[in-house]
């Protein structure tokens, strides 16, 4: 046991952007949370939480696997490993109707190509819809996750192409036009509660629901955050520094990722 502790202490505590984003995201999850996850950082973060501080987090994938406990990172949302280790496997119509839409998901975990200051997401198109500059993959399950999960988490690298002042297309609704405009739409869930980037963490401000910078990752600066944002980014008065990854977090993540 002493050996293991010693090995942990000797883990290289430098980390990549993906690693800090994944670790910060995993910390947001608690035992008993039911999390609707997509592939990539959301899936890795949810599994990291499950293998560290939140063994009873419940993972749901849109492929219809409920309560999955993969032993390796799934390669796609429909990986066979997800079905093998699930408590239940249901059809795609059922996962959207009986599970997501019914309000059984605590946390929806989303990525995007673009995001605005209200946490609205674009995964459809850059430029004109009928004559696009870049055609993106489209909505997938994100609009319903964004609409119906009790809250959502967004993971996205912070740069001016992604953090834009105006979205060409709203694929998934965040806090819409700010203030109470989201609930006025009839959205069931509460919308984005956190946006985790490679630079820091943003959260919606009380009342306005505008995303403000509340934390910087170790070594990152306000200037980097501001220049990475296409709107006039506001900074929280009590701006924090993100707790650095622990040796245990990094070791588990690297084992999970096979890196």
């Amino acid at each position, binding site marked *: 046991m002493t050996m293991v502790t010693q090995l942990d202490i000797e883990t290289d505590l430098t980390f990549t952007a993906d690693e800090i984003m994944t670790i910060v995201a995993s910390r947001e999850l608690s035992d008993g949370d039911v999390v609707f996850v997509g592939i990539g950082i959301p899936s890795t973060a949810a599994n990291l939480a499950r293998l560290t501080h939140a063994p009873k987090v419940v993972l749901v994938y*849109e492929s219809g*696997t409920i309560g999955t406990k993969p032993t390796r990172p799934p390669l796609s*949302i429909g990986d*066979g490993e997800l079905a093998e280790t699930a408590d239940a496997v*249901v*059809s795609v119509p059922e996962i959207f109707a009986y599970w997501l839409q019914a309000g059984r998901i605590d946390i929806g975990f989303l990525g995007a190509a673009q995001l605005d200051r209200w946490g609205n997401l674009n995964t459809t198109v850059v430029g004109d819809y009928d004559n*696009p500059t870049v055609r993106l993959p489209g909505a*997938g399950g994100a609009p*319903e996750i964004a609409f119906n999960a009790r809250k959502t988490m967004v993971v996205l690298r912070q740069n001016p192409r992604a953090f834009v002042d105006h979205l060409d297309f709203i694929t998934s609704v965040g806090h819409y036009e700010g203030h109470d405009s989201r609930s006025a739409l009839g959205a069931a869930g509460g919308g984005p509660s956190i946006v985790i980037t490679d630079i820091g963490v943003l959260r919606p401000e009380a009342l306005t629901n505008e995303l403000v910078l509340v934390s910087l990752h170790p070594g990152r600066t306000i200037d980097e955050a501001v220049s990475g944002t296409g709107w006039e980014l506001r900074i929280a008065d009590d701006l924090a520094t993100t707790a650095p990854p622990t040796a245990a977090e990094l070791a588990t993540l690297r084992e999970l990722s096979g890196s």
Partner: protein
Amino acid sequence: MRIFRPSTRGDYLMPTITTLRDAVAEHVHDGDTVALEGFTHLIPVAAGHEIIRQRRRDLRLVRMTPDIVYDQMIGAGTASSLVFSWGGNPGVGSLHRFRDAIEKGYPHPLAIEEHSHGGMSVRYSAGASGLPFGVLRGYTGTYLPQHTNSISTIQCPFTGESLAAVSALNPDVGIIHAQQADRDGNIGFWGILGVQKEAVLASRRSIVTVEEVVDTFDSRVRVVLPSWVVSAIAVVPRGAHPSYAHGYYERDNSYYREWDEISRDRNSFDEWLQHHVYDTEDFAQHLAMTPDLAGV
């Protein structure tokens, strides 16, 4: 009167166990609305190749998650429109033939009818249920309804609440891949189930490719489609490659990565198309060119 069944009854009808070539020749016609479904698992890739090989044109392709096989079908010019909710190469990135068609109109323009997964799955369920539309909580606040005519709103007659309505999907042909058929022509599959049951039941005709025909279903079978809702069955081992068939073979992840290179360039795609589809007799010949297929 909506009868979603291979043909009118009276005479007893069982699906033909036939070749994929004959199944596509008989059931897939130019101009048809065709859904090849499979949610990352059991994707009917062999059937897609056969549709290309038979040079079908002007298809309205439907799929929640058009990925490589739809990139191939679009790049080969079989489709004039696409109904979908997410088009990409999962875990890799863009579909280059799909983007080339939408962004540049190559090989010809591709009209799109775009939804979310929730909306598409409700559309299939409504279609399978013989209803003209389905209802969901969603779309509000997104720009999708501005571009998609098959999205509308509806008021609950009891609460007055406004909800999204989507029109039903009823393809001319639904095509899926399953692990097993039994000797009576019933279809059995398991693992991730996707929307395949609904795709078959919503369609006027259906083709099912299977890994094998068995005397008795594997005990893992979770969905059974009775023989009389299926038009044609073809035995195509590894017919879902490069996706996987739970219990038979795993996903060929290297193929997904390699497709990014092949499809990025029009010429390399055309070479692939000629060599792997037009110059082959069937999917087995294409598979034989693919080294290192992972066994289970």
